[in-house]
């Protein structure tokens, strides 16, 4: 980062600080509202106009976790997100290495295919997937979501890791090849250890996307493999909505995502634009 030779005028600085505080408020306020609503009793939550100062209670949390089975759905989400991420990394890393190091025909088409996977609406695959899965009796299983989430996780992992492998100096490859090492050896023992940051970032992405996903979960699960977002949505039935419970569930869903997103915040733009903007 460079320094300005002459700092901005004090008045300009004041405006700058004010505007930044405004941006922070704009971004953070809904989260504040989510958490405070989750700490209200149903009677308080249905106060009109809404109250800002009240005695917080954790009743919603104990109710959704112990009575409504949100805990189980959180575990389902965790199992699915972790498994699909592990699979994506396992399959994606060698592919990324190949894309970074080898020249071959059809490479451009592969890139194109991955980009399309990033952009296509999940409904396009949800329709046939539902019919197929129903036919082979796998509806409402963890496996189905683990597999279908690979359609967006695998391209992301391959994408980010390819970038990472490219940044590993090629000299290392050449030296190892002169020693007679096989490509697999070079990948495993030399390049992969140096690509750990990329693997970590892409794992975080894969986890966040899987954890956040709703449409496939809605269409392909019922009870057994129901994920937490699908559970949160099912509270939305009926007339007097249990706002406190909905917001408590939402808070529980959002916490891990926010932690991971903040960890990977430096790489978020690159990941979301598939590397087009560094």
């Amino acid at each position: 980062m460079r320094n300005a030779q002459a700092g901005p005028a004090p008045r300009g600085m004041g405006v700058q600080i004010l505007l930044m505080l405004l941006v922070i408020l704009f971004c953070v306020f809904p989260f504040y509202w989510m958490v405070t609503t989750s700490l209200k009793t149903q009677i308080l939550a249905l106060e009109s106009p809404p109250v800002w100062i009240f005695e917080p209670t954790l009743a919603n949390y104990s109710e959704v976790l112990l009575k409504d089975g949100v805990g189980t759905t959180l575990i389902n989400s965790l199992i699915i997100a972790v498994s699909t991420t592990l699979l994506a990394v396992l399959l994606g890393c060698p592919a990324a290495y190949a894309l970074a190091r080898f020249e071959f025909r059809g490479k451009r088409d592969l890139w194109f295919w991955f980009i399309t996977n990033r952009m296509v609406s999940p409904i396009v695959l949800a329709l046939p997937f539902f019919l197929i899965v129903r036919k082979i009796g796998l509806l409402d299983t963890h496996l189905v979501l683990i597999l279908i989430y690979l359609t967006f996780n695998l391209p992301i992992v391959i994408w980010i890791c390819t970038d990472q492998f490219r940044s590993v100096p090629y000299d290392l490859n050449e030296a190892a090849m002169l020693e007679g090492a096989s490509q697999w050896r070079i990948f495993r023992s030399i390049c992969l250890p140096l690509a750990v940051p990329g693997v970590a970032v892409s794992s975080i992405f894969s986890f966040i996307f899987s954890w956040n996903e709703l449409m496939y979960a809605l269409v392909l699960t019922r009870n057994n493999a129901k994920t937490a977002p699908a559970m949160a949505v099912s509270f939305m039935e009926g007339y007097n909505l249990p706002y406190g419970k909905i917001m408590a569930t939402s808070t529980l869903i959002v916490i891990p995502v926010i932690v991971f997103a903040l960890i990977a915040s430096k790489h978020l733009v690159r990941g979301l634009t598939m590397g087009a903007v560094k």
Partner: protein
Amino acid sequence: MPVNASSGTIRRSTILAFLGPSVVTLLVIGIGPLLYAVWTSLHYFNLTKLKKVKFIGMENYASVLTDSVFWEALGRTFLLLVISLPIQLAIGLGIALLLHQPGVGFLKTLTRLSLVLPMATTYAVVGLLGQVMFNLKYGVVNQLIGFVGFDPVNWIGDPTNAFIAITFWDIWQWTPFVALVLLAGLTTVPSEIEEAAKLETKRWFTVLRYVQLPFLIPALTAVLILRTADTLKLFDMVFTMTRGGPGSSTELISLMIQRVGFRSFDQGLASAQAIILLIITIILSQLYIRLLYKEV
């Protein structure tokens, strides 16, 4: 046939061993179902009348193309895009310029971290939060606009207002993304050029227009295409907030296809709609890759 790498040759079987597993996986879970969707789209296929499945050729496509519901949903999706994208670009550019200025390092980091929150948040939760905050009686939005003298607005229950509410919510969630992408673009401007320009003129707009803008083109292109694709994908947030209603006032294209396929059970028609949506997406992806990845 061996293919040349920059030194030595790498056998085709080696390349296959590295790439094969993921390509095969994506073929099985991605392309396979897609082909099945094409097959479904050529049939009369209703989940409640599975005995009556029969081949009807392009009939589903013909009904999609002449169906006003489809075009209205597509039109609504693009309406959302043309309203929210310019606002996201304007505010996003403002935030990016704000953060690009020197000074107040700590607050800048804090701002950047807060920008990460909206776009990472589970889209379904964003929609639920919208439900709660935009509620007519219990919502904080009506309370806040009440402070500045507005009457409470029936956001979710009125067709036009519901559309405004989801547009506002889309702007809330994605302006930070636009801001961060543009900020990344701004850092690609060589600092000597920028400093020199700032010595030449005091007007920030001149600097933006003639010095920074040319370097922002890739970031702007990425935003334009990705936001288009993401709006065509948009489902979770709107579904949890309004279910596409009231009426069909917030039924975007992905919601409409989901309703036809899973709530009207007409899988054949829905598949035809999905394939048309896929074709639009493929054209967008082509644009993305042509304009942004010159080296691959």
